[in-house]
């Protein structure tokens, strides 16, 4: 199995709604494909087609060497699916859930029991394995759900927004587990709304919007597609960041993004470090100070926003919405101090 997932021209429509409008993608065995896209972009439909739950209206897909439409059972024996919700039975214990799934994969009772015990240990559920799942926290349910998808040690794993609803600690723990799996050769397709998650786990990224692939490549390639560099400026307390933006906007290749609350200005620029003397000169001429300055490549987040359309608000273009992960919102502050 040299290619874990290959899709050609996948199309799917639900009544008048076009969910997928011709998606091509390929994931080499052992790779991790991050599928990014806004809500309603078609990510879940894509996962469902590849996991044999939905038939495409057009196009073809092969998963683990088998055509999903022609040999769904062969595909099912080689995949694990962890959907958007933790699909575990709340009225069974963690262990009972896993043994049930193991039996349905065709493992004998002792095999299923052993495999369940292994996964319970690996996903740090040992203390809760004998408890009904209804008593579990959201993070524990998620881990159990991922454990269920790993029961048959599938060569190809589908994870649809695996860390949605997890706290930062639960997210890190799951990333750790997924990282170990990929290190040991499992191919993975992961949809996510968290760019940091894709950066952290994915070797290849596909951005889909309105059912189409609008960009694909390695994280580095996508960052390059966002164009040029970013000049990151931190205004000292008490100074209006708009003054910084005003003094330097003529150097930019696009409008600066101003985060007034954080006192931060991000200006897309071209020309590399050669523009830094000019930046210093203009700041001095305007009598302005900066408490931090960095020239860097665009983040994947900026690339994503540049490729999927403008952010909803010009005043806070760097902020995630309130439901975003704390880790991701904290990231720009870290980046601002880093240099190229």
């Amino acid at each position, binding site marked *: 199995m040299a290619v874990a997932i290959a899709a050609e021209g996948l199309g799917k429509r639900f009544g008048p709604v076009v969910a997928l409008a011709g998606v091509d993608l390929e994931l080499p065995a052992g790779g991790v494909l991050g599928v990014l896209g806004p809500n309603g972009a078609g990510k879940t439909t894509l996962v*469902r087609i590849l*996991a*044999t*739950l*939905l038939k495409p209206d057009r196009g073809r897909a092969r998963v683990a060497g088998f055509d999903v439409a022609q040999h769904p*059972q062969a595909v*099912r*024996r080689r*995949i*694990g*699916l962890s*959907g*958007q*919700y*933790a*699909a*575990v*039975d709340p*009225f*069974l214990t963690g262990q*009972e859930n896993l043994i*049930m*799934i193991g*039996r*349905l*994969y*065709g*493992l*004998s009772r002792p*095999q299923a029991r052993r*495999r369940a015990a*292994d996964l319970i240990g*690996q996903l740090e559920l040992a203390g809760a394995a004998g408890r*009904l799942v209804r008593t579990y926290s959201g993070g524990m349910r998620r881990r159990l759900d991922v454990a*269920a998808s*790993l*029961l*048959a*040690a*599938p*060569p190809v794993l589908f994870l649809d927004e695996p860390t949605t609803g997890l706290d930062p600690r639960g997210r890190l723990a799951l990333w750790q*587990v997924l990282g*170990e*799996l990929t290190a*040991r*050769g*499992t*191919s993975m397709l992961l949809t996510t709304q968290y760019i940091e998650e894709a950066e952290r786990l994915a070797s290849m990224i596909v951005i889909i919007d309105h059912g189409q692939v609008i960009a694909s490549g390695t994280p580095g390639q996508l960052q390059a597609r966002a164009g040029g560099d970013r000049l990151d400026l931190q205004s000292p307390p008490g100074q209006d960041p708009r003054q910084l933006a005003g003094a330097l906007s003529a150097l930019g290749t696009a409008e600066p993004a101003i985060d007034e609350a954080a006192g931060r200005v991000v200006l897309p620029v071209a020309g590399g470090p050669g523009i830094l003397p000019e930046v210093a000169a203009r700041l001095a001429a305007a009598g302005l100070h900066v408490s931090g300055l960095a020239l860097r490549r665009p983040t994947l987040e900026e690339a994503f926003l540049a490729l999927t359309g403008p952010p909803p608000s010009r005043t806070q273009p760097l902020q995630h919405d309130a439901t975003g992960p704390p880790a991701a919102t904290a990231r720009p502050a870290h980046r601002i101090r880093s240099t190229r």
Partner: protein
Amino acid sequence: MITAAGTAALPDRPAPMLADVATITGRNLRRLVRVPTLLVFATVQPVLFVLLFTYAFGGAIHVPGAARYIDYLLPGIFVLAIGFGASQTGVAIAEDLSTGMIDRFRSLPISSGAVLAGRVAADALRNLFVVGLMIAVGAAIGFRFHAGPAAALAAVALAVATGLAFSWLNLLLGLAVRDPESAGLAGLFPVIILFFTSSALVPVATMPGWLQAFARANPITVITGALRTLCLGGPTTRPAIEAAAWLLGLLAITIPAAIARYRHATSS
């Protein structure tokens, strides 16, 4: 450390379908004793039906051909309790759909009928218990079989077979309406209407003329009639054939329809 890909070594051939059905049956039997609503539907409700209908109506209703009202009543109450209990099957499958359990099951290498058949098998075992419980409670307050042990066993078998048809119907309803609460109502509504327009509580001859034709064709009348001849005695062949025809007809429609729906079901 996480086991590397491929080391769990699935068997070369998938497990036989019966093994998958047994696994799903086990899941549902566990739920039956752990989910409070399900436990009430399987224990308190059947007992209450027997006691309430016997003591509330029993004094007022005298039925020709039955020495005691409970002898006439109990076969109809079997159908009522099984029909009400089956509404929980629609609720459960709709819940499985909305929580993504169906997505997970459908991503597994099992046959599309196994999940539904496992549910129906668990229901059948529950119904065996429910009928036994109602017979025990009924016997304590005067119910007796009058047609011998073979006919009594046949009555229990027919009641459980009726449950199969109700279960498949409710699986179809649950997969069609998708929302668990609506699925519960969709399952109860036909049972309530058909039960009170049937011969379960009173003889059809006591109903107004316009209702009699409907009541005679009503499957609950037909099935209750067959159960009654098996419990009380009398010619059984024709009622049994009519009841079997209804049940087989219902199964012939609901089983393929439910499986077809299941094969395309995904959480929304």
